[in-house]
């Protein structure tokens, strides 16, 4: 079926031009890596481990993807990637191993099919997920997929959705079975009907990661008509209050925790009112797709595989006569030709509809029951290994150390090992039907380990002076609306012992299962005892000489090592771009000084310094002239920056190679002072990218008659002695007198002016001179 629920907004398509331009600039060596990264990552383009190849994460709103789109994805993966695609736990589809220069081609190509990686990474509003069985599920209250897609279109139009303090994840569930995980997202919306009206129960502050949290109830019910206001208000609260400079504790959950739910709710309610007063938000009314019920019988065949297919892979739809097929995609990895062939099934079964699942699987909905055997045979020709979705064998796993910069262990390789073992020993058993496994290569939760019934989390331990791949074993995670619970750690196991441990554990659990009771109660108590006993039995670690095998991760030949491990890219964004520019400006100043006031370097300093903060004003100039004039407009004229720089455009224009040494030095000193001023402004920037207004605040410029009464050279005087000396000197002066001090860079310049301000003195100006700073202080 080629029905398009989601329409990629024109704004996103236009914005792609910025990506192209940044990429070209970067490839031509005109902008530094850190700066390009700030553009690249919010466009869903991540570096692979090693930094040579890239991944593009295409957002699939609510997991709804049509056959033309699937074919396009497969084609893009073949043409620009390594011919493989990966389905994520956020219903995105990733293309891997793309050359950097081809990343725009992927964006450009997929755009024509209504797909984009915009907001696939970085500090953005990420893919909005929804129950994968929306519209066909027997249990659902109503079809939430339409809401998820409408909300996606609304937010993708807004620039602010890509400039958030940190990532922001929204999900919808159609019923309390909660296939989508409303308590493990920043914002979770649960379908409900009250007084005959559709609406949602709202949860906030959940999320999985190195510090996972369960979401908290914010609103019992908001009608569907208020959905846009509600989520916009939440987004605004986060936009304004998230602490952008501390990216490790900067998800909505930390904000909720820090201020307390009551305080947060107050803030939300006042924002909700403000949004409602200010704008009218009518989300697009997306018509859910449906078909007439039919009489259609499931064919009966004497084929063992087909019988298992019917038993494990089929979900009867709410609509009579139709089934939804679930295809287990091991490790979420699928080849381009397989994906294209699946899309091609449309030729024979014309109304089928595809969905990407949070379990990293694929679903095909609207299959007529009578066609099930035929489609089974066709699928068998396409996929090797698709039986038994939603079982113990359907391991959820991240990409791990194979491609990820953060991955510690090779989780996909362990997953394959575990799947082999399960296939050989446990198919059809109780544990097979009732348990699941989630596997993560590191503590970040892309593989969703905190909600796995049995989970493994990659870790490294030092044994015999060498790093050894280990996994933490967790039990009892649960994703089920308000019953959601995080898995608890039972102990650690060497990666090489993990399959054996798991096999023994499953055997023991299987024995208990026959008379067993509530699965979660069991996992919390009895299972922990079993696991701990087995973990103790497997605790022995041979020395390197005795058992090198333990020092090599699954799927590898070489010794386990942590080299290649880098910082995560997903927090990259505005702050990185600002800091990259500030660093560039500083380097330019230093080099200008070394190269007898080289004018190119001075110009570079003007360019980087004036551009640094423009990004928060939504301007990203690509040449120095624009940067300087935009700075004048957005910062000097807006009274944010000091009016000392009112003439900056002329000062900049006058820089040319005809200047004599004295004039060059003058420009150099101006650039130094200007750079220091920008650094000060950056420091004063608050978490929501606002600046204290210069006009209202006391940020006086120096008048000519304000000459220092005393000058103190505090170069080489460490903290806090430099401060004390300045303070003592000020004591001897009269109120209003000026003291000039010269301070070292680093700690002194960071601390001393601030401390003197706290003492009630006024810092009139900070001027950088190479490695020193000249500060004028007025006694308060």
């Amino acid at each position, binding site marked *: 079926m080629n029905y398009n629920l989601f329409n990629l907004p024109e704004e996103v398509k236009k914005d792609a031009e910025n990506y192209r331009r940044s990429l070209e600039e970067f490839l031509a060596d005109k902008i530094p890596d850190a700066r390009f990264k700030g553009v690249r990552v919010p466009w869903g383009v991540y570096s692979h481990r090693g930094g040579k190849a890239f991944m593009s994460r295409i957002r699939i709103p609510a997991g709804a993807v049509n056959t033309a789109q699937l074919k396009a994805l497969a084609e893009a993966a073949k043409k620009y990637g390594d011919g493989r695609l990966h389905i994520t736990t956020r219903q995105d589809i990733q293309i891997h191993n793309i050359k950097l220069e081809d990343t725009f081609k992927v964006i450009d190509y997929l755009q024509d099919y209504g797909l984009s990686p915009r907001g696939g990474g970085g500090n953005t509003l990420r893919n909005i997920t929804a129950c994968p069985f929306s519209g066909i599920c027997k249990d659902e209250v109503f079809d939430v997929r339409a809401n998820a897609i409408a909300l996606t279109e609304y937010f993708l139009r807004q620039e602010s959705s890509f400039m958030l303090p940190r990532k922001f994840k929204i999900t919808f569930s159609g019923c309390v079975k909660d296939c989508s995980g409303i308590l493990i997202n920043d914002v979770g919306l649960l379908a409900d009907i009250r007084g005959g009206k559709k609406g949602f129960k709202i949860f906030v502050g959940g999320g999985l990661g190195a510090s996972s949290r369960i979401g908290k109830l914010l609103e019992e019910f908001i009608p569907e008509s208020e959905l846009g206001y509600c989520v916009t208000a939440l987004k605004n609260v986060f936009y304004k209050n998230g602490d952008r400079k501390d990216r490790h504790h900067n998800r909505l959950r930390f904000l909720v925790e820090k201020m307390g739910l009551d305080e947060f709710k107050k803030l939300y309610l006042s924002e909700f009112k403000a949004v409602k007063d200010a704008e009218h938000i009518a989300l697009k009314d997306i018509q859910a797709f449906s078909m007439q019920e039919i009489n259609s019988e499931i064919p009966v065949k004497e084929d063992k595989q087909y019988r298992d297919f019917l038993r494990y892979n089929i979900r009867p739809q709410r609509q009579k006569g139709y089934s939804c097929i679930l295809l287990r995609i091991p490790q979420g990895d699928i080849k381009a030709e397989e994906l294209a062939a699946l899309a091609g099934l449309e030729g024979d079964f014309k109304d089928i509809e595809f969905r990407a699942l949070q379990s990293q699987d694929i679903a095909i909905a609207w299959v007529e029951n009578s066609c099930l055997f035929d489609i089974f045979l066709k699928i068998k020709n396409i996929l090797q290994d698709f039986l038994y979705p939603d079982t113990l064998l359907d391991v959820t796993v991240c990409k791990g150390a194979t491609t990820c910069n953060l991955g510690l262990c090779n989780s996909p390789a362990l997953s394959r090992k575990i799947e082999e073992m399960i296939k050989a020993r446990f198919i059809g058993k109780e544990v097979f039907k009732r348990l699941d496994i989630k596997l993560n290569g590191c503590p970040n939760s892309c593989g969703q380990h905190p909600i796995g019934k049995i989970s493994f989390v990659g870790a490294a331990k030092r044994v015999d002076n060498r790093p050894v791949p280990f996994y933490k074993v967790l039990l009892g995670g649960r994703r089920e609306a308000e019953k959601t619970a995080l898995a608890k750690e039972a102990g650690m196991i060497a990666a090489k012992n993990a399959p054996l441990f798991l096999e023994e554990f499953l055997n023991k659990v299987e024995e208990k299962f026959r008379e067993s009771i509530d699965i979660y109660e069991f996992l919390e108590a009895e299972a922990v005892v079993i696991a701990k006993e087995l973990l103790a039995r497997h605790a022995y670690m041979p020395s390197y000489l005795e058992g090198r095998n333990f020092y090599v991760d699954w799927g590898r030949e070489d010794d386990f090592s942590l080299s290649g491990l880098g910082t995560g890219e997903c927090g990259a964004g505005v702050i990185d771009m600002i800091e990259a520019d500030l660093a560039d400006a500083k380097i330019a100043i230093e080099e200008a000084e070394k190269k007898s006031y080289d004018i190119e370097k001075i110009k570079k300093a003007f360019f980087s310094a004036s551009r640094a903060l423009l990004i928060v004003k939504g301007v990203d100039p690509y040449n120095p002239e624009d940067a300087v004039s935009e700075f004048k407009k957005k910062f000097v004229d807006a009274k944010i920056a000091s009016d000392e720089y009112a003439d900056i455009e002329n000062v900049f224009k006058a820089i040319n190679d005809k200047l004599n040494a004295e004039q060059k030095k003058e420009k150099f000193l101006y650039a130094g002072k200007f750079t220091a001023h920008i650094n000060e402004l950056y420091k004063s920037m608050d978490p929501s990218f606002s600046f204290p207004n210069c006009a209202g605040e006391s940020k006086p410029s120096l008048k000519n008659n304000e000459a220092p009464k005393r000058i103190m050279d505090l170069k080489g005087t460490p903290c*806090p002695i430099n*401060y*004390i*000396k300045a303070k*003592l000197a000020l*004591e001897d002066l009269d109120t209003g007198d000026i003291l000039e001090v010269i301070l070292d860079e680093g700690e002194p310049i960071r601390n001393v002016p601030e401390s003197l301000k706290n003492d009630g003195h006024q810092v009139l100006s900070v001027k950088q001179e190479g490695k020193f700073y000249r500060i004028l202080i007025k006694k308060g």
Partner: protein
Amino acid sequence: MSLNDLQIERYSRQIILPQVGGKGQEKLLNAKVLIIGTGGLGAPSALYLAAAGVGRIGLVDSDKVEVNNLQRQIIHSTPSVGMPKAESGRRRLSELNPDVKVDAYNLRINSENILALLKNYDIVVDGTDNFPTRFLVNDACVMTKKPLVHAGIFRFDGQIMTILPKAGPCYRCLFPEPPPPGAVPSCQEGGILGAVAGILGVLQANEVLKFILGIGELLTGRLLIFDALTSTFRTVKVPKDNDCAVCSDHPTITKLVDYEQQACQIKEEME
């Protein structure tokens, strides 16, 4: 007078305090404090005052350092056993801070020598170990209008009050007469935990520093009582006694007197 670099460095952590600053430090360096007794109270008090840079400190004590002193009198150390306490204290303070000029008085204070001693100092720390001297010091300070920081300790308890003569109550407003000889504890009962002496001695130093700097509120008209066993402080208001024998407008004591004391009580009951 201005601070040299070494002094800025040495006192940096208190100069940083807005209430101290360079001006406050100069006040400290110009201040003169007399500490009577270098025992459990005088020892910690003297150390903190010297460390803070009080310019001149007088130490009065007629005893020699004994091994049993060392459990609490932390200004003295094992090699000083047998040395006059005033001299032992002087050496320690000079080592601690060369900025401090220390006057050592190896003498027993009495009604005849006390006025000459007080004359050269701004404030007095009472670290005496007996009632006759305590009353003598109180009376002399009231008569010469010299501020006095009183403290007393006994077993697990301590008390402290700052006396600003005429402006607030004096020790006699609290206790008009020394107790009769039989009422004070016997030698065996008069033990003390060293740290309790330390706490009260340091509180005395703190009062002196506040007085010199002119900051905060002194313990005038307030008796602070410390109970070490429960680690609690409480303050009791002490009114000025309008009929006080020494500090009222119509004093009955106008001449200093030396009270008698039995040998054992002199040493142990109150340090």
